[in-house]
Every structure is written in structure tokens, then in C-alpha cells.
């Protein structure tokens, strides 16, 4: 029966590098046992990672599709699978299947536009893929603004990459903020939604939001206040998933399956859904 | 046929609603047919007139609903309790599962409830109407030219055939006449199982439990199963499962549940009533009740509020574990 592929049957992935990002987030580099990328993906898509005997869970692919060598996953410790992964060392094998979900419309809607990325906490993980994709094809996009906030400086994901690579790019503006004042931090202090309003962006751009539900809600309200249209704002949803392909029924909200029809949604599409996400 | 009528119950409930004693009524809601009643909360006299029903198919034990409903409702809730339901009511009070002050309990007599599957076995399928008259049920079907007349006693639910008590052990008000605790034959079936060889008994349960679809209806209907979070629903427990990884696990679920409710199970029979696969789950519980009676003296869970079940009450007269073992050896 080995000749019939089934999406539920995963490939083997090897963790080749573990980077400690924050006190509760680690970034895992994964390749196949023969050192290749497990599969191609588009920005915003996800993969199912599993540890046999522990469980399987959906994670957004943090690395950019333009990275031809490996995939990366920034994973916050918050459940059985993630707890296990956090104690894994390089060389550890896991299983991987995907890619799943609808990506960000980077090649059509985003093309030629100014982009505004807004993330909170581990919400930067799915955006890192799209941000690096847009940086790679820099000439396809207009000005890029990135607003990113976390509880503290230590909780900022990819801090080194943000400072050393993103912030030094032409036409890319990075605005960092942390929730409370902290020694050694001379940047902005305050919550993301408020910071976004303070920054007061012009509305002729596409905005992408990712973070905790409460941050998304208030940021979206703020964007609408300063004149953004919801048809120009994208976000991602996260619900419990098992199959990844819209069959097991778990992530069904309204007529949509988050694993298959999402995780990327345009904010006006979300309004059509019942408020169960 | 029940001695108390729908009209009497509606009148009582209406009085209590109107004079402000209660703000809601937990009763039986009318269904599509004459037998598919649904536990329903009524808030007005009009709702009662339109939707309240009482007949030979009002088997559901309301006691467990009080745990959630008393939390939600302002003022008191009126609950109608059949004698067997009052035992669960007391047991839940013993376990501090709801606030007694938020309940107005009206005890109602019960002549035993009918099992629709037994009715259909006699009348045939395609029921158009079921009438009740004295001790007879008159069943009109789509296929028989004449209505089929059935003796109510011939279609009694198993738990009602073995009714343990017509006496209400808890109420604020009693409608009709009080009954007595009955010397039932409810342990006969247990004795029959005990008389089997271990292999026969294993085969019996193997056959019965093989039908289990793990819907959890037995647990969810059980008035003794009121844990806020059941171990079988907890992914971190290591035993959580919707369906068995193997056959053995299925048996384990029912046996663990029986152990968990031992000493607290009042033998209300809801588990077997709700089982979609007609598994006689109550026999597991009854076996434990019988054993506890034999080992520690007669004990009826829920007979009074605050009583301590033998398994959680040490006395110096308690049977030595060794003797329990010896008796089991003699039984096997």
C-alpha cells in the first residue's frame, strides 16, 4: 500500500537547529533525513508537526518560501506537543506533513502595494514568513511598515533579525514596543493597538494583523478608526485542528474550515462568519 | 396509566408560578409523538399550557438537571420528582451539588413508566398515537387496522418492573398518596450472573459491552456522574478517549465508572434507559449495591441526606478484606 499517498501519513523531519528566542518560544529548523526541505509552501501556510505518542499539532511555517534549504517553526510552549518539542535537541526526528491552508495573497493583492505588518507576541511567527518573502522580492512591493510588540524586550521574537536585517533594509520601517517600561529599553512602551493609532498610518495600504485575539480586535478597531477598510486588512485564525484538510470537522466555523479556507482571512470575510473563533 | 394527570400538574405549577413561590418549572415537554418527551424549563403558565406533558413516557430523572439549572435561575425552580428521582435528589444534596434553597420539590406518584421499545415490540412500528386508559395502553399504528390494546404492565421499563420504592424521600410538597419502600426482586438478575461461571459471565459482558459505541450517554445522564471535569474527557489524564483503542478499554470504561459511583449510585436506572445499545449497565451498579449490602449491611444511597456510604465510612464492625476475598472465591 506504500504507493498511495495519503496526506494524513507524514514524512520524517529532522530538527537540525534549536534557537531560544524568548523565555517560552523556541525556533526549530527542520529538514528531511536527506537534508532537504520537506515540501514547498507559500507565505502564511502551515504544517502539521508531530511527536509519535505525544500528539500532532498545526504550526505556521515561520521561514520564507524563498529559503530553499530548510523550514523553521517558532513555537511557544503551551501544550503537550510544544512542551515535548521544547525539550528536543538537534538530531531529534519528528514527523511533518503539509503544506496546509490558504496563503497570504502575496503575488496578487499585495503586489505593488505599501504593506503594514502588525504583530503581537508569538503572532510574529506566521508574519515572519511573509515579511521575509516580501523583503526577498523587495521591488514587487511598496513601503513596508512593521509594528511589533510584546510583553517585554525578552519576549520579542526574532529580535536580532529584526534589528540587524529588517530595520536596515531600504523602505522598511520597524516600530517596536513593549507593554511595560524596562531597564535597557529606550524604545516605545505601550500596547500595540494604541501604538498603531499613535503612528497613524496612511490608509492606502494593505495591513496584516497577527497576535492574540484581544490584540487583533482592538487593533482592527483602531485601523478602522483611522480610516482603513476591512477589505484591506488580513489576519490569521487559530483553532484546534486534527486533519488539516477540512475533513475532521474540528476547525469548522460557519461554512469555512480554518485549516483549509484559512488560516489567512480578510477581515471583511471574517465578519460573514459566526462569532465562534 | 399514571394516577396523577397532566392537568393536575399544570395547575400545581401554575399556582406556584403565579404566587411567586417559584420562577421556573422543570417538567416534561411535549414531543412530536406521544412518547418522545424532552426535559424542559417552563417560565410561564402559557408555556405550561402549550408544552407541558405528563404520561407513561416521562421517565427522565430531573435531579441532575438541578445542578446546572439552579445556577442559572433567579429564585426557586419547581421540580417534579417521582419516588425514584427523590433518592438521586438526596444523594446530590449529600454531595453538595446544588443549593436546596433554590428548589421547590413536588413529589408525584408514579405507577411505573413504559418502555417505547417494548410497546413497539407488541404493537409493531409506525406509531400514530398512544392513548392511556386505566391499566391499558391503546396504540394506533399506521399498519394495523385496529388499535392495539396493551396491558401497561407488559411494557414497563425494566427499572420499573424492579421498582425499589414508591416512597418519596424528599419533597417540599407531595401530590397524591405516599407509597412504601418495596421489597423488589431487583437483585435476582445479579444473582443469576453470580451463579454463572467466570467464563460464562465474561461471555455475557463481552456480548453486552461489544455493542457499546462510547457515546457517553450513560455517564452524561447519570445523576452520580457530576464531576465538573470527567477523567475520560481530560486529554491530560492519559485515559481520555472517544472510542476504544482496543476492546479491553471499552470494558474498562464501564467498570471504572461503576466503581466511581459505587456507594453513591441510587439504582435509578438512567444509565440503562438512555443506552442506545440497550446494554444493561445498571447490573454492574446493582452488583456493587448487592455486595455492599452483603458485606456492610443494608444501605440505600440517597435514602437520607448526609448519610455516609459504607465505602467511605469506617466502623470497627467492617468486614475484613480477607473475608471479602474468601466470599468472592466462593462465588466464582
Amino acid at each position: 500500500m506504500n504507493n498511495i499517498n495519503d496526506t494524513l501519513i507524514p514524512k520524517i523531519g529532522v530538527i537540525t537547529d534549536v534557537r531560544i528566542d524568548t523565555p517560552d518560544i523556541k525556533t526549530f529548523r527542520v529538514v528531511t533525513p536527506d537534508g532537504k526541505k520537506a515540501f514547498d509552501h507559500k507565505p502564511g501556510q502551515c504544517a502539521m508537526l508531530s511527536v509519535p505518542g505525544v500528539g500532532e499539532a498545526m504550526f505556521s511555517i515561520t521561514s520564507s518560501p524563498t529559503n530553499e534549504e530548510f523550514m523553521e517553526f517558532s513555537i511557544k510552549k503551551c501544550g503537550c506537543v510544544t512542551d515535548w518539542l521544547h525539550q528536543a535537541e538537534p538530531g531529534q526526528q519528528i514527523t511533518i506533513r503539509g503544506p496546509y491552508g490558504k496563503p497570504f495573497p502575496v503575488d496578487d493583492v499585495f503586489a505593488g502595494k505599501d504593506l503594514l505588518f502588525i504583530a503581537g507576541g508569538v503572532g510574529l511567527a506566521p508574519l515572519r514568513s511573509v515579511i521575509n518573502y516580501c523583503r526577498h522580492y523587495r521591488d514587487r512591493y511598496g513601503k513596508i511598515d512593521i509594528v511589533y510588540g510584546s510583553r517585554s524586550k525578552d519576549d520579542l521574537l526574532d529580535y536580532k533579525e529584526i534589528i540587524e536585517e529588517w530595520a536596515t533594509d531600504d523602505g522598511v520601517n520597524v516600530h517596536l514596543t513593549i507593554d511595560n517600561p524596562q531597564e535597557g529599553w529606550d524604545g516605545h512602551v505601550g500596547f500595540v493597538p494604541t501604538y498603531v493609532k499613535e503612528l497613524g498610518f496612511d490608509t492606502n495600504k494593505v495591513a496584516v494583523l497577527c497576535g492574540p485575539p484581544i490584540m487583533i480586535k482592538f487593533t482592527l478597531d483602531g485601523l478602522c478608526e483611522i480610516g482603513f477598510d476591512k477589505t484591506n486588512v488580513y489576519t490569521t485564525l487559530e483553532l484546534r485542528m486534527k486533519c488539516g484538510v477540512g475533513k475532521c470537522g474540528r476547525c469548522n466555523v460557519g461554512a469555512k474550515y480554518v485549516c483549509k479556507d484559512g488560516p489567512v482571512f480578510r477581515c471583511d470575510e471574517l465578519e460573514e462568519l459566526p462569532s465562534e473563533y | 396509566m399514571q394516577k396523577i394527570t397532566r392537568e393536575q400538574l399544570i395547575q400545581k405549577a401554575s399556582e406556584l408560578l403565579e404566587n411567586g413561590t417559584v420562577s421556573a418549572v422543570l417538567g416534561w415537554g411535549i414531543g412530536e409523538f406521544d412518547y418522545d418527551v424532552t426535559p424542559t424549563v417552563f417560565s410561564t403558565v402559557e408555556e405550561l399550557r402549550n408544552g407541558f406533558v405528563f404520561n407513561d413516557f416521562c421517565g427522565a430523572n430531573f435531579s441532575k438537571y438541578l445542578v446546572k439549572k439552579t445556577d442559572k435561575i433567579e429564585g426557586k425552580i419547581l421540580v417534579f420528582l417521582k419516588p425514584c428521582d427523590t433518592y438521586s435528589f438526596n444523594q446530590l444534596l449529600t454531595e453538595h451539588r446544588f443549593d436546596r434553597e433554590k428548589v421547590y420539590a413536588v413529589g408525584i406518584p408514579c405507577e411505573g413508566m413504559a418502555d417505547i421499545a417494548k410497546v413497539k415490540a407488541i404493537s409493531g412500528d409506525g406509531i400514530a398515537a398512544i392513548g392511556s386508559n386505566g391499566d391499558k395502553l391503546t396504540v394506533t399504528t399506521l399498519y394495523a387496522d385496529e388499535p392495539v390494546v396493551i396491558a401497561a404492565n407488559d411494557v414497563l421499563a425494566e427499572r420499573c418492573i424492579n421498582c425499589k420504592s414508591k416512597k418519596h424521600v424528599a419533597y417540599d410538597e407531595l401530590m397524591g398518596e405516599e407509597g412504601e419502600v418495596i421489597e423488589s426482586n431487583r437483585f435476582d438478575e445479579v444473582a443469576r450472573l453470580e451463579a454463572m461461571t467466570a467464563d460464562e459471565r465474561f461471555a455475557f459482558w463481552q456480548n453486552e459491552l461489544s455493542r457499546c459505541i462510547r457515546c457517553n450517554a450513560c455517564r452524561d445522564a447519570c445523576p452520580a456522574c457530576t464531576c465538573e471535569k470527567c477523567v475520560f474527557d481530560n486529554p491530560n489524564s492519559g485515559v481520555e478517549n472517544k472510542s476504544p483503542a482496543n476492546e479491553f478499554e471499552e470494558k474498562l470504561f464501564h467498570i471504572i465508572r461503576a466503581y466511581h459511583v459505587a456507594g453513591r449510585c441510587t439504582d435509578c436506572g438512567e444509565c440503562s434507559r438512555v443506552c442506545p445499545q440497550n446494554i444493561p449497565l445498571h447490573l454492574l451498579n446493582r452488583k456493587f449495591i448487592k455486595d455492599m449490602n452483603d458485606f456492610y449491611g443494608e444501605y440505600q444511597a440517597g435514602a437520607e441526606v448526609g448519610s455516609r456510604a459504607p465505602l467511605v465510612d469506617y466502623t470497627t464492625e467492617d468486614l475484613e478484606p480477607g473475608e471479602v476475598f474468601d466470599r468472592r472465591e466462593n462465588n466464582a
Partner: protein
Amino acid sequence: MRKCSLEKINLLFKEIAKNAELYLPQDQTDGSAAYKKWEEGSVWSNALNTVRSPKDFFFPQTEDLMAFKTEGKNIEVIDTRKALDDFVIFGVRACDVKSFDILDRVFLSEPVDSFYALRRSHGVIISLACSKPSETCFCKTFGINPAEPTGDISAWKTETDIFFESNTQKGKELLEKLSALTEECDDTAVVDQKAKIDAIMQKLPLKDLKTDAFGGGKTGELFNAPEWDELSEACLGCGTCTFVCPTCQCYDIKDFNTGNGVIRFRCWDSCMYSDFTKMAHGNNRLTQKERFRQRFMHKLVYYPENNDGLFSCVGCGRCLVKCPISMNIVKVMKKIGGKKGE
């Protein structure tokens, strides 16, 4: 059309079972019927239908998906799928045959579920017309005619004979193999039975149940209907309706450590269960009302929205018979649909 005398039915079963495993409804010790493998001496049940639906044949309650062997940091994925022989399911009612179409749209849409597809491709379905529908039947509401069951072969049973007509190549081939035990006949008896069934259908209590209030695009209109509170009030949150339902197909994937490796299996799951949507950091349906609503909205609105208006209910009535509190899709449709549902 071919017929076989009921006196010879066991010979017919024997003949079918020569070439393929044969499953048919048989009485269990509790009086209900279940699909069981035919063996010499098996008796075909007279029951209208089985408690468990035949979805088990294609989507079993539990099935192994794969196994893993782990050694140190290494993992090996073991494909546990096995080749399957053809099997025949006999006596499937029209409602249940229709349920396979509904399941197909989920499992056979891309990416195809190979576990389901394999079973489906090996199953031969012999359906059976319902001469005596129950008061709980409402298949007509969903456009199903119990007098015209589909499947690979359609069958009609009279007092004396059973009549067969093949609908597919698979069915035709099977019927040809049975030619020694069947004889060619006209359709007089079947036409007569169809007329009788039609007449009964006019008398069923749920004959006027309508779907007009439901269908794709009605989420906004129905989701916040105040009736959901009352309808879900007494729901125990058990999985009876889901598990007896021929069209419910939600599943869970779990790992089981055998002590000698890990088996990953899937099993039926229910949106009625409190942990169905529970995640490490929250749950998007915290109340039984939300979970109850999800089940019916899915069958009556979401599924049709994604499947050309096809409802995910076949009116088999199992939930009407089995729900511990007698709450079911008919009551939901009448209450939520208001006058339109009458």
C-alpha cells in the same frame, strides 16, 4: 429485473458469500439489529433498520492510520494499510445509501482520504426498499424515495420473493453471478409495492417537514436565533446522535502507545463533546448551546453551502429514536424554521 423466492434466500446469501464477505442486518441479543458478517446459519433481520448505520463499513469507529517505531532520536513511519477484498453490504435502506453520497463529498474530495476510498471502492451495496417505514422516518424531506433505493443493486422484498435490479457495472456483475438462483421477471410486483409505499408515505406523521428555512447562506439569519437556547436546554452533551447518525463524520486522530511502538488511529468524534474544540490555550465553544447549534447548523446550513445545497441529513430517524432526551433534528427544524418548517 430478477427475482428470488424468499425460501431460497439463504442459498442466495451463501452464493454471494462464496466470492466476497457478506454483511447483512441480523438481530442481536437485545432485540435490535446490527450489520454482521453472514455465516452459515445467520438469519436476516426483519428490523426496519440497524441502530448503527452502515457508515461503519467505510468510516469505522476506530481505524489504524499508521504505526511508528522510535529508536533514540529516530522515527520510522510504518504504513499499516492493507489490501482489501470486495465485500457486499445487503439490505441497506434508501436513506443510508444516500448517506454514502454525503460522506463521499467529504472523504473523496481532494485530498482524497485513501482509507475511506479503499473501503468504498471494494464495497458493493445491495439496497432494500422500505415496505413499512416508521413514524420517525422523514427521508422524503431530503428528496429520498424509500421505494426507489439506489446502490449497486436495488432490491424489493414482498411476502414471498425478493426482486433485484442492478444500477452499476459492479451490481450487474454480482447479479450475473447469482443467475442460477434468480429468474428474470416483470416488474408487476415491484410496481405494486412502490404504490403501496407511496400510499404509506402520505400517512407518515413527518411527511410535511420542509427544509425551506435552511440551506447555504442562512448563517446570518439562523445562527443567532433565540430558539437555540430552549432547544439545547436539556442536551446532555453525549454523542448518541452523532454516533448513530449515518452522515456525521467528524473524527479525532490519536496516538496509542502499545509499549512496543505507537499506533496512530482515528476515531469518531462528536461536536457535542466539551473537548471537541478545546485547544491548549482555550476553547471556542464553551457552552452546550454552542456545540448543539454547531451540529445542526452544520447539517442544515454549512454543509449545503459547500455542497450544492445538499443537506447533511437523510431522515433515517435514528436520532429521534435514540436521543436520551428526545431532542433531535426534526424538533430543531420545526422550531427554528418556524412556520416554514411545518
